[in-house]
């Protein structure tokens, strides 16, 4: 199916009333989640994932993806109005966005954030649409050694960029591999690490771990504050949200910069939207004629990072859908969702399930238009979300987590595991262990072991097969280089700076 025919097919699916509705629900929920500091897209998607088992898979992936990219739009609102990023990807938007708000230009700042998000988000979807099919065709030549090498590279990138301490990130990833290994070995039917429990013979459900670590861990960490956070004053007078023509002219380069950098960073596993927005901001500042004014409320300083963090979404879906390799916690949950519904993301995904791929692409065009319409006139309304009392929100998250896990497994044992992983998620946050490598290790662990064992079967036990094939050798060499970066002082300084900004 060529791109034009695929896109037509996709729009025919995405424009069905039910799918339009799920797209709207997704982007609306995403915007709300993006606005709320302390509740992120991975937690929300993990909680809602079990409930999607009742839905049509096309509608379900459209909704979950809507939450993913919708949150990027919402994150800018609190950055600009309150200097509080709703999402880590919107941290850099605070720098100039909040200064614009202090100068009485909150409206144009919000407006340009929405417009840049729309333009770059759309460019990201175009990139996804153009690059995915040829990449999937190329990946058809991959065999087990290439897959093992690719997963190793993906995990190495995530480990590199996931936390301040690479030792802790590696340990989190290895614990994820161990969790993936719990259950019955598919090759020999040996039961491994089951502690004599029948319930563990089929392994630990990904949903239990994801909801425990992301949703419960996040709420428990937020519960540390004794007092409910005070509702922050939302500035009035947001009627004039449209930027002037001069603002738009000033942002021409920022739109292009954000779109291109965001997409390219998105394709790399592990880098993520926070790093995309920082690099885009840095490039914008470096090439600007008024670089000295950055930080004082320059509109390009809002447009570039906001564009980048939205374009990144399209890029991040490329390795997920064409190679079956997620690059972040959120895309790992999307991968688990596709597997839960009976799909196998990878090189054959687009050719075997064109309706899912093209329906998702078309829905993202539609979702970006919906978000532009929602975010421009309704920002003052969304800002009121910040007034929702957390003592109501947190029990709701607990309830959704419990219902979600029970819906998937119907097992009380899994509820006990949920509580255990909730505590683990909290402890990991407290002790500065990043959670994304653990979740990715869990998602990729089974496939990685299978690929390694199949490779060694092909070579009759010789590890040489991993380095004698050029693509596999190249990817393993890259993975080794990535893990050696902390030993190069200058590169490690750059890595630590990116981590500090991510954790601010």
């Amino acid at each position, binding site marked *: 199916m060529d791109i034009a025919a695929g896109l037509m097919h996709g729009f025919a699916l995405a424009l069905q009333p039910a799918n339009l509705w799920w797209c709207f629900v997704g982007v609306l929920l995403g915007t709300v989640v993006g606005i709320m500091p302390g509740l992120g897209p991975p937690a929300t998607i993990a909680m809602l994932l079990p*409930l999607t088992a*009742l839905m049509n898979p096309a509608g379900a992936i459209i909704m979950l993806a809507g939450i993913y990219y919708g949150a990027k739009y919402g994150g800018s609102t609190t950055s600009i109005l309150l200097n509080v990023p709703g999402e880590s990807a919107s941290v850099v938007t605070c720098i100039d966005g909040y200064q614009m708000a202090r100068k009485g230009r909150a409206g144009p700042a919000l407006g340009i954030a929405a417009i840049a998000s729309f333009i770059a988000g759309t460019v990201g979807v175009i990139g996804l649409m153009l690059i995915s099919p040829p990449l999937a065709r190329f990946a058809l030549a991959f065999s087990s050694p290439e897959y093992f090498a690719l997963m190793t590279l993906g995990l190495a990138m995530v480990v590199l960029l996931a936390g301040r301490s690479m*030792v*802790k990130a*590696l*340990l989190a990833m*290895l*614990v994820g*591999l*161990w969790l993936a*290994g719990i259950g019955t*070995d598919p*090759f*020999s039917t*040996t039961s*491994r*690490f089951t502690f004599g429990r029948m319930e563990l013979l089929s392994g630990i459900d990904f949903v239990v771990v994801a909801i425990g670590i992301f949703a*419960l861990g996040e*709420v*428990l*960490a937020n*519960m*540390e*504050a*004794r007092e*409910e956070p005070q509702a922050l004053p939302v500035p009035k007078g947001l009627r004039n949200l449209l930027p002037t023509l001069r603002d738009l002219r000033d942002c021409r380069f920022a739109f292009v910069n954000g779109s291109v950098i965001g997409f390219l960073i998105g394709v790399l596993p592990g880098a993520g939207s926070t790093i995309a927005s920082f690099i885009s901001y840095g490039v914008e500042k470096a090439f600007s004629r008024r670089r000295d004014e950055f930080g004082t409320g320059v509109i390009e300083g809002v447009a570039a990072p906001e564009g980048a963090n939205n374009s990144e979404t399209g890029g991040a879906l490329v390795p997920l859908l064409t190679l079956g390799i997620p690059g972040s916690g959120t895309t790992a949950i999307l991968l688990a969702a596709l597997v839960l519904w009976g799909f196998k993301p990878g090189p054959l995904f687009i050719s075997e399930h064109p309706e899912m791929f093209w329906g998702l692409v078309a829905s993202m065009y539609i979702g970006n238009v919906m978000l532009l319409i929602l975010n421009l006139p309704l920002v003052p309304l969304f800002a009121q979300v910040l007034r929702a009392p*957390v*003592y*109501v929100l*947190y*029990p*709701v998250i*607990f*309830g959704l987590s*419990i*219902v979600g896990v*029970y*819906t998937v497994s*119907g097992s*009380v044992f899994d*509820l*006990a595991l*949920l*509580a255990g992983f*909730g*505590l683990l998620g*909290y*402890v990991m946050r*407290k*002790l*500065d*262990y990043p959670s994304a490598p653990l979740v990715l290790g869990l998602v990729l662990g089974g496939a990685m*072991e299978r690929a*390694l*064992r*199949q490779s*060694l*079967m092909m070579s*009759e*036990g010789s590890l040489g097969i991993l380095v004698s094939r050029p693509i596999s050798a190249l990817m393993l060499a890259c993975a080794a280089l990535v893990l050696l970066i902390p030993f190069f002082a200058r590169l490690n300084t750059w890595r630590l700076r990116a981590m500090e900004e991510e954790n601010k």
Partner: protein
Amino acid sequence: MLRRSPDLWSGLALAALGGYIVNEARRWDYLTADGPGPGFFPLWYGIAILALSLVLVLASTRGPQVDWKGTGRALATWAALAASLVLMKFIGFALAFAVLAYFVVAVMYRRGAVLAAVVAAALAAGFYLVFPLALGITLP
């Protein structure tokens, strides 16, 4: 005296996990006639966990200190959640969830008993209306 960071304890816990994995993996076939056995992959990541956790333990004098303020609140909430999960087996989801919600509102956020009871009852009723009644989902 040097103040150890919590990395010491997490490193020791992970070292114990690594030791357990290696010990278990040694009981399974490492290589079989068909290729690597069930013990192959776990043995290597078990060794890696053991080695890295020892690095963490050795470096723990330089590790960051943790601000424990508020930990008691988080752990109390977790204990309430765990207790409500146990209660669910005996009194059902709606009641156990209402107790949990009441605890969060009244104890953790120090709101009045009436408000807490109203929020707890409304949330429990809301969950019951949405999941079993509207969506046909079975609750624990």
